[in-house]
């Protein structure tokens, strides 16, 4: 075979090639073990395991931002830029609470406003004073309305709720007095609230005393009921309820 002929034969060997299927399959196999690229900053972010799960990144980041935002807004007072966010969480808390809990939460919020007023007075934040007093008065008014709307069947089935309401009202009265002495001004009338609480105590105690009177009680319980009735007749409705509560929880 001549050299030129041999070279021609060699060049014809260029036609030797693998099947297209094998070429495609092998290529797939080479890259199959590799995780698919997740983005521009994958190299840096993949250092932190949480960033490898990119799909979960957005919701996690949103939740973290919200938690941070709500945490930060807890220190705001009425009149601050982000107080509306805090107010939003308070409203959400009220929306998802039961009828019995609503006035109690309103009273807790009113107490919170009083605490904020104390901070405002300490920091001499005059700008926040008026909005905070207004918020306090709104909480008191709403709590009064909620108490007036109370169904006797609800309160009588849970006398402890009234006990907590009474405790919260007492705390409110103490705080209000303290803040008013610091500010040197009256920050709102709680007369209506006190009347509402008193009315509620009276109604509930009367209902429960009548209800317990129809039942067969032990000697000890009968004594407690007599004491409750005496307190009621003396106008001490809260103390009367206290006795009934002890009797009911024995």
């Amino acid at each position, binding site marked *: 075979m001549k050299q030129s002929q041999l070279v021609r034969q060699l060049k014809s060997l260029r036609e*030797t090639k693998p099947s297209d299927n094998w070429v495609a399959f092998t290529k797939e196999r080479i*890259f199959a073990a590799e995780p698919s690229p997740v983005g521009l900053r994958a190299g840096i972010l993949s250092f932190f395991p949480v960033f490898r799960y990119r799909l979960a990144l957005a919701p996690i980041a949103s939740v973290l931002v919200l938690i941070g935002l709500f945490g930060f807004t807890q220190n705001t007072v009425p009149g601050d830029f982000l107080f509306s966010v805090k107010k939003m969480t308070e409203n959400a808390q009220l929306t998802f609470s039961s009828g019995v809990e609503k006035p109690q939460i309103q009273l807790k919020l009113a107490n919170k406003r009083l605490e904020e007023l104390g901070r405002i007075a300490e920091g001499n934040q005059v700008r926040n004073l008026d909005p905070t007093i207004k918020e306090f008065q709104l909480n008191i008014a709403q709590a009064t309305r909620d108490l007036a709307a109370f169904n006797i069947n609800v309160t009588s089935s849970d006398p402890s709720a009234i006990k907590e309401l009474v405790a919260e009202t007492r705390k409110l009265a103490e705080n209000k007095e303290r803040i008013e002495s610091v500010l040197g001004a009256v920050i709102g009338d709680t007369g209506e609230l006190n009347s509402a609480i008193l009315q509620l105590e009276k109604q509930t105690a009367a209902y429960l005393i009548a209800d317990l009177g129809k039942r067969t009680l032990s000697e000890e319980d009968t004594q407690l009921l007599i004491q409750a009735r005496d307190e009621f007749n003396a106008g001490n409705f809260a103390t009367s309820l206290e006795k009934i509560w002890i009797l009911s929880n024995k």
Partner: protein
Amino acid sequence: MSNLRKTYSETYDKYVKKIYRFVLLKVNSAEIAEDLTSEVFMRGWESFKANRDKIENIQAFLYQIARNLLADHYRHEAKAQLVSVEYAPPLPDRKQDLEEAAFLQSDLERVKAALSDINDDYREVIVWYYLDELKVSEIAKILNKSEPTVRVLIHRALHALKVELK
């Protein structure tokens, strides 16, 4: 990673047929050639990811992996042949030999057979120079030899092939 993948994917498309042919002309078995070629690109990808900047000539790099794998393959084959005759495959019968001989009559098959029988260095330069059309300078880089040495090697390789074909 995405860029690396793209670059290596293009490299694969460009060289897979050449590497396959380079391997096939040595091993004379499509199946073994496929296995070894895929191993070349697997190893190439691992190295490419880890040391991309250190690879100056990807073509030379892939051929070098192929040469190493072929050497390993034949080393392993040589060991495998050191078995008892009891386990050796039966000898082909004479009739089959004649049929194969008839098949090898075609010039192309003769050239292929001769290529797989000559010295490895000779076969490599023939494939690179005549089939892959690499320049002498490129072959010199792969073999880490001077260009005049490569020219002499190509000349001797062709002569050896002619002798094998006689």
